[in-house]
């Protein structure tokens, strides 16, 4: 008898799963896992660690860098001052890391992904995760920059290298 009950329970659970399956799927789209490359990139998670070839987690997969576009960099500086400078200073650590030489340490894709979706990065990206720990758990704010605006900030960062 016990086993009958078990089977019935199983069946009703199965019914439940079947009946709700399609609805559930619609509601919680499955997060796409970051695509694993065949050769795993070695990641140095320390703040000063250099990860120039690591692109982070997010929609920016590839950025072509040419000669520095001064006009774009100017725009980027303006956006940086308005939306980022409350937590980042150039030349010193503040709420977040010093960004003086950030382009020597990080790929442009990583920087853009971090600006565009810091919530996802601090959950899924090992470098961003470690940074959150190193900076007292102060999460980076999502300032809702567009992709284009983010790209100009990268251009600005390129002008800061010493």
């Amino acid at each position, binding site marked *: 008898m016990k086993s009958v009950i078990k089977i*019935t329970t199983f069946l009703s659970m199965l019914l439940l799963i079947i009946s709700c399956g399609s609805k559930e799927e619609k509601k919680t789209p499955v997060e796409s896992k970051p695509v694993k490359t065949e050769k795993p990139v070695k990641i140095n998670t320390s703040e000063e660690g250099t990860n120039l070839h690591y692109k982070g987690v997010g929609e920016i997969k590839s950025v072509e860098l040419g000669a520095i576009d001064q006009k774009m960099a100017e725009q980027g500086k303006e956006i940086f001052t*308005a939306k980022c400078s409350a937590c980042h200073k150039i030349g010193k650590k503040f709420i977040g890391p010093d960004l003086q030489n950030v382009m020597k340490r990080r790929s442009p894709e990583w920087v853009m992904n971090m600006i565009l979706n810091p919530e996802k990065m601090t959950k899924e990206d090992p470098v961003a995760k470690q940074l959150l720990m190193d900076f007292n758990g102060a999460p980076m704010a*999502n*300032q*809702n920059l567009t992709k284009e605006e983010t790209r100009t900030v990268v251009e600005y960062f390129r002008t800061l290298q010493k």
Partner: protein
Amino acid sequence: MKKINGLIGLVIAGLVMLTSCNNSESSPKKSGGALKSSAAEKVYVAPGEHDEFYAFISGGFSGQLSVYGLPSGRLLKVVPVFSQDPEKAWGYNEETKPMLNTSHGFIPWDDAHHPDISQTNGQVDGRYVYINANNTPRIAKVDLSTFETTEIIEVPNSAGNHSSSFVTENSEYVVAGTRFSVPFPQRDMSIKDYKGNFKGALSFIKLDEEDGGMDLSFQIMMPGFNYDLSHPGRGKSHGWFFFTTYNTEEANTLLEVNASQNDKDFIAAVNWKKAEEYIKAGKFKTVPANYAHNVYDEKTHTATSTMKKEVRILDPAECPGLVYFLPTPKSPHGCDVDPSGEYIVGNGKLSANLTVHSFTKMLKAIEDKKFDGEAYGIPILKFEDVLAGVVEQPGLGPLHTEFDGKGNAYTTFFISSEVVKWKLDTWEVIDRKPTYYSVGHLMIPGGNSSKPFGKYVIAMNKITKDRYLPTGPEVTQSAQLYDITGEKMELLLDFPTIGEPHYAAGIPADLVKPRSKQYFPLEENEHEYAVKSEAETKVVRKGNEVHIYMTMIRSHFAPDNIEGVKVGDKVYFHVTNLEQDYDVPHGISVIGANTSELLIMPGQTETFVWEPKQVGVWPFYCTDFCSALHQEMQGYVRVSPKDSDIDLSWTLGE
């Protein structure tokens, strides 16, 4: 046996689960017997899911507008309108104080009554909610992109602004009628001389097509009756507005008895398109007035109050064809127009029957000039000539009627505590359901429009007595949700409401959600004291005024150490939230501030004033838990003696 029962139970449970996952649209027809879906399932909105409708329910004597989700009855927000709200700094911060300015000065409270949603082509469009203040007559506009009150206009020559604030079918006007008649012009006179000297103003406030802004276009100066409720004509009756009256006896004392003498009072039918013609033809008188028009600017995040000095008046006795009186039994309260615009329901609160007038018959009677005398120069039509039908003895104390768009009407009965469903055209009663207790208004989403969404009706009760856990002598008011998709109504849910719910307005959520703002772009912030980056933060002294230009972002203020403030200074904290993300407000207050906190949305600037009275070092902090480091979001102001010579200084991280 036990085991078998258990087995059957499990199978049934499985089946019920199966059913419950698919039944969000289930109709009573589909379910039945043992599988009948429960009321609980119909109102259950799973965690993380959204409600199907917004309900904007007046907060009555709280002065506010509360926003609920239907069918769950979950409270989503209380929008401050006519009363100060320390939670949101409404009427406390420097930016919103002008919103509560009136010709009587700053007023921190009012009695909010009848919300109504703006319309396009006779249908609710989800742009704005208008709502009236009853005590100090005003109409407010709530912008549904921000769910904030962005405009308030005072209504002159009015008192007890009750037959308000209803919107015409293309949002041409929001209309306000006075409940109490008052001397016109206001003056020092004996109350006994009421008759003929007191007048009732019906105010037509023009709405701006672009931004819903309000401008008092004209007032019709009516006889000294009480104008109780109103609704616009629609469809065939578009261009007309209907107002119930009582106290046509023009009593000025003991109205409980003296205003119930006449067998019939009137519904006033106002032809506002005719009024526009008279205005155009210059048939108005411009008279001096004094009323406030307060506008909140979303770019400067600041309100301004302007005093208006005159108003145009139309005298119905001098404007033939402008107003007609439809005799209606016994002090009619609600005045409701069906979706087609043909039927005007007068809910005679002391009458045994419900009176329904016909718009077509009214036009015919006017055309045939079949008048039964006049009152103050306004023609009175004959009751029999305009009557469409009577719902015989449906209940006691009819107050309000709404429509489902399927040929049915639903009327509340205050004394017998019930909602009665009846059929237009045949006037037969189809169903009745009790309310708990003493129901006032009721609301079907889109109820005041040509397209109601007849899925639910909510009844709003004045009295709840034993319906909830007792909370001392004062217990909650409530709303009750009924499913009206079937022949019979089904009570699904009780939920408590804020203040006293008078009218409400409902709309499918999909008509509002896409316009809802997530934050204010910093680059569009034009506040006089906004600072757009930490580099611009500063502290400036002007005599004994100290202006702190401050920013906030997770999780610090800039500056957070300020010195050089003295006892006797008036310190202005102008604080800009630099966040540009959804749902990251920050708050701020400082010890000893004689005002409320600020609750500042991303990209917004707000200001509070602090007048430190004691020497010392006083902390300020973020009041809205904003991040893991919220408890670290704080700062200090050093307050020195009045005669101290410490210079102003401000720092962060030094």
